[in-house]
């Protein structure tokens, strides 16, 4: 490789042209280099580093010492971490099904007979491309006392709405509701495309055979879009475990620790109190959790995803 790199003339007169594999090999080294170097430096290396850090006491300044599994045992005995873990699971358990039901429901509703469906798609997709920060701030105004909900309710009935972001029973639901509003448009587009790809004659045949709308939905549409459903639910699962910006800006993790999530915990340990080892260990627990659930998804899909029709 090194001789080639210093530029041996490729086709000296009378010599055989280099083979396809060798000729392409040189070009490939050139074309793949930026991504390979970038990926190694900014993804592969940080993964390894993160794993190493998780087993060290790694303060921002001062001595780094090997700590074995101490970071992990510290975390699992830390009530804040355990609470963040539970909160994250609660968020995922509420958010994922809601997101899927709303996005599948609207995608089905916005069938080909609906006029203006293109414009509607844009409408529902708008919050997805809007900065999360802007979304979170406007929802804070909607939820807070005297905000849009409370103000409207008080003007209409004379009673005040709960303080959604400040009351223990409400904050997590408020965060979930805002997140669903913000995020479902993406999955809706995926399902909409999958539904459009169902051959018309299948649904027409079912109709002629007397299948009602619900039967058509459960027996034809749902199985036909199951690959999209699998893809979308897996992606949504992975991202919802990492929920950060919405609670960070709307509740700051409160009231108490009610909306403190794993990602907020990692952020706090890493960038407020500079315990990088502890933060990395927390990140790895999050990662393993995501991997585990994704693996379950992949194993489970064989039961419900139909690829061949």
């Amino acid at each position: 490789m090194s001789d080639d790199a210093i530029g041996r003339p490729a086709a000296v007169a009378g010599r055989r042209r280099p083979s396809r594999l060798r000729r392409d090999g040189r070009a490939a080294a050139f074309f793949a280099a930026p991504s390979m170097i970038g990926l190694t430096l900014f993804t592969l290396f940080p993964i390894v580093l993160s794993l190493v850090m998780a087993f060290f006491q790694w303060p921002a300044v001062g001595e780094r010492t090997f700590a074995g599994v101490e970071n992990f045992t510290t975390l699992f005995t830390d009530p804040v971490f355990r609470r963040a873990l539970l909160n994250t699971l609660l968020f995922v358990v509420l958010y994922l099904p809601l997101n899927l039901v709303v996005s599948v429901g609207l995608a089905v509703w916005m069938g080909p007979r609906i006029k203006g469906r293109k414009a509607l798609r844009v409408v529902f997709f708008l919050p997805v491309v809007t900065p999360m920060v802007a979304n979170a701030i406007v929802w804070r105004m909607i939820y807070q006392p005297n905000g849009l909900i409370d103000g409207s309710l008080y003007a209409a009935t004379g009673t005040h709405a709960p303080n959604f972001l400040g009351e223990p029973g409400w904050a997590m639901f408020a965060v979930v509701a805002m997140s669903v509003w913000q995020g479902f448009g993406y999955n809706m587009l995926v399902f909409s495309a999958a539904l459009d790809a169902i051959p018309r004659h299948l649904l027409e045949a079912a109709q002629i055979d007397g299948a009602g709308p619900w039967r058509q939905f459960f027996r034809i549409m749902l199985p036909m879009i199951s690959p999209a459903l699998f893809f979308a639910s897996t992606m949504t699962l992975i991202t919802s475990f990492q929920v950060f910006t919405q609670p960070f800006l709307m509740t700051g993790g409160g009231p108490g620790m009610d909306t403190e999530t794993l990602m907020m915990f990692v952020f706090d340990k890493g960038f407020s109190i500079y315990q990088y080892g502890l933060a990395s260990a927390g990140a790895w627990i999050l990662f393993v959790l995501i991997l585990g659930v994704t693996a379950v998804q992949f194993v489970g899909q064989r039961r419900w995803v139909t690829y061949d029709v």
Partner: protein
Amino acid sequence: MSDLAVRRVRLVISHVALYLVAAAFLTPLVYMLATSLKPADEVFQSPPSLFGSLIRWENYSETFEFLPFGKFVLNGLAVAICGTIVVLVASAMSAYAFSRLRWRGRDGFFLVFLATLMIPQEVLVVPMFMLMRWFGWVDSFQALIFPWAFTAFGTFMLRQFFLTIPEEISEGARIDGAGSVRVFTSIMLPLIRPALAVLAVFTFINYWNSFMWPLIIINTVDEKATVPLGLSLFVGQQGTQWNLIMAASVISMAPTAALLILLQKHLIRGIATSGLGGR
């Protein structure tokens, strides 16, 4: 009523209900826009109203005086545009290498690429921060641009498009004596222009909207913040000026909303075919 008439009525009801749902869905964004044009003391007036006693366009100019928001917009645009260029160049080049060139270890390397798709970005922030410290990149624009530019997503997506180009086209050019760089720039790239556009738009949006990483890596916020980070500063200010914050929020969503509306057809097809995009 005949069967047909019943169906007609149902379809009309379905339309009306759907439009109502869409209107309700848009309420937060309308509220954002409405608040951005109100005088400060009317923001939380009861009952809530769409318009204040006057339409206050000055809120928008005051936004730029209240915080260096103009700088945040320029920073955000610069970072997003540079980032998008880096992502496009790196992804297109490696996608070409992984689809149309033959070399030893190609499929193995590609598997490694794909595997990295599974790793959530957020898991990498702590070691990435360490890396930035070693590079001396903390509080720099490089740190906003490069660390997340080399994800496998763009490579994976563009590779799918390169694979749809018949091999005869590139082979023909090679027999005519064009080198691989020529083939890449003057034949392959023009053929996947729509895919490049979709990737560019989504990459731009991701950079523009990114919040957590700028929050971590930027210290001199007045100088180097991007729009979301700057926006979050407004909230912390004393005596939160909600009308100005909402004006800033409207400005923050303008570029991405404009891209979405202008390029809706391509973006929606892009999502449908590759499952690409933000969250």
